[in-house]
């Protein structure tokens, strides 16, 4: 479904991705692991066209999308749940969801209404707070809003950047339950996580990024048993 081939991306003068290749099949949950500044977020931004690769190709459903504008990439069915949520704090919950559907210009209002209802169905709290400013929500609620906002684009591939960051353990489980629900409803997911244990428990496969290169790639169960993963991400010696 999504294929990165030898992607090199610079972040200012820094070579953030040094030839990253990875592949995601339709229906999968793929986990991207890596320490700080290993290039995880840059990988996501490159897929979405927020930063341009210097070389290499990104293809989605068989067609190249590197070089397309972000709006066109979102329209083809990729959307992002960003790191640290980044909801629009000075807009209401409802307006944030509407912004998520920005690329669906011309879609019938009834269709958008239906999708907003779907998000409210997943996250009951958002319905209660529909007219509240997003900046007044708790961290967990903002994370739900960020996921709901991304779903409003009707993605076939959802990019999730550190969805568990800064959340209480109970909420982390809830968020990963929802990720699984979304996946079961037919959305492919690429999730970047520091919390490797939880992420690998729901993922089908995983890649490990280090200093802008993929150093390891296997199915999730095998990665959980790999010594280097246990040491680096699961806190075992």
């Amino acid at each position, binding site marked *: 479904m999504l294929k990165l081939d030898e992607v090199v991306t610079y972040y200012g003068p820094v070579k953030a991705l040094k030839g990253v290749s990875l592949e995601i099949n339709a229906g999968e949950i793929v986990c991207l692991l890596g320490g700080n500044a290993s290039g995880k977020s840059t990988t996501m931004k490159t897929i979405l066209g*927020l930063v341009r690769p210097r070389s290499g190709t990104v293809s989605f459903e068989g067609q190249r999308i590197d070089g397309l*504008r972000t*709006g066109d990439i*979102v329209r083809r069915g990729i959307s992002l749940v960003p790191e640290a949520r980044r909801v*629009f704090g000075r807009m209401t919950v409802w307006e944030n969801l509407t912004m*998520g559907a*920005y*690329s669906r210009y011309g879609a019938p209002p009834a269709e958008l209404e239906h999708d907003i209802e779907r998000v409210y169905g997943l996250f009951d709290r958002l319905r209660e707070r529909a007219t509240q400013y997003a900046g007044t929500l708790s961290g967990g609620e903002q994370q739900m809003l960020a996921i709901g906002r991304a779903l409003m684009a009707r993605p076939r591939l959802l990019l999730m950047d550190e969805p568990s960051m800064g959340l209480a353990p109970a909420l982390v489980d809830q968020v990963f339950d929802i990720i699984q629900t979304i996946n079961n409803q037919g959305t492919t997911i690429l999730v970047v996580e520091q919390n490797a244990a939880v992420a690998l428990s729901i993922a089908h496969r995983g890649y490990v990024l280090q200093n802008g290169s993929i150093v390891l790639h296997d199915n999730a169960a095998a990665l959980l048993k790999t010594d280097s993963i246990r040491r680096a991400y699961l806190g075992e010696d």
Partner: protein
Amino acid sequence: MSDILSILPQQLVFGIALGTVYGLLALGYTMVYGVLFMINFAHGEIFMIGAYVGWGLLTILLDAQLGGLHPLWVLPVLLLPAMLFSGGLGVALERFAYRPLYARGATRLGPLISAVGASIFLQNAVMLTQGARMKVYMTNFLFPPTWRFNLFGASISALLVVMVGVATAMMWGLNTLVQRTRLGRAIRAVAEDREMAAAMGVDVGKVISATFFLGSALAGAAGVLIGLYYTQIDFVMGYSAGLKAFTAAVLGGIGNIRGAMLGGLLLGVIESLAVSFINPAFKDVVVFAVLILTLVFRPEGLLGERLADWKKV
């Protein structure tokens, strides 16, 4: 003392009329600051050029000797082209004078200096093509001096009513656009988090252009209204009017649309009262004292948010 009280209503009326127009002009500063974090110091010149477009059209209409020039149709004929021309000029200014700088990663200072340069360029372009002498708006042909009524001891002319009416309607329209439409949401999204707006599929460049168009079009309308009010315009009129509107934007809270309207209104009234109760020569001193006091005691403005508060959320 009784003298002062007797002219107070009149001065308030002048102040409110002037203030709504300052508010119109202040919106341009505040909107551009909202999306680009820069002060468009050429905004006053866009206002001045709007005044010249209106003057040119009014002169053509008078030369054509059409007979009755009723403001009901003449005013739109002056305002709409002035707004379109000023709006287009604002878009061009951003595209050619500011975007090449910030798109290449210049700091905020680069576009700011470019704006000062654009301001000087536009003043001189108008001086060279239109001459340095002031132009006269034949306001009396449009609004006969007899069109006026008395209210609480103030004499209110039809022109003042029109100024307040047009400016208020435009501010209401802009506020509705920003709060209720898809474009308005996109503008607010870009102002709050440009990268996330882009991630939603917003074409940030187009939204910035639209913002410049809206702010500049309002400045064009303000130019025509001020031309009709003062009846004389010249190529440097944008300088002081621009600084005053900038003051109004800072007073209300730069980046805040309702703040710009409030700041404009307050500043118009303050200026008008200073003229009658202190000394007309001190008019600008009072206005810029307001700027300094705001910056010292409430830099975030009356309706502005403290940036630090937002980072905590």
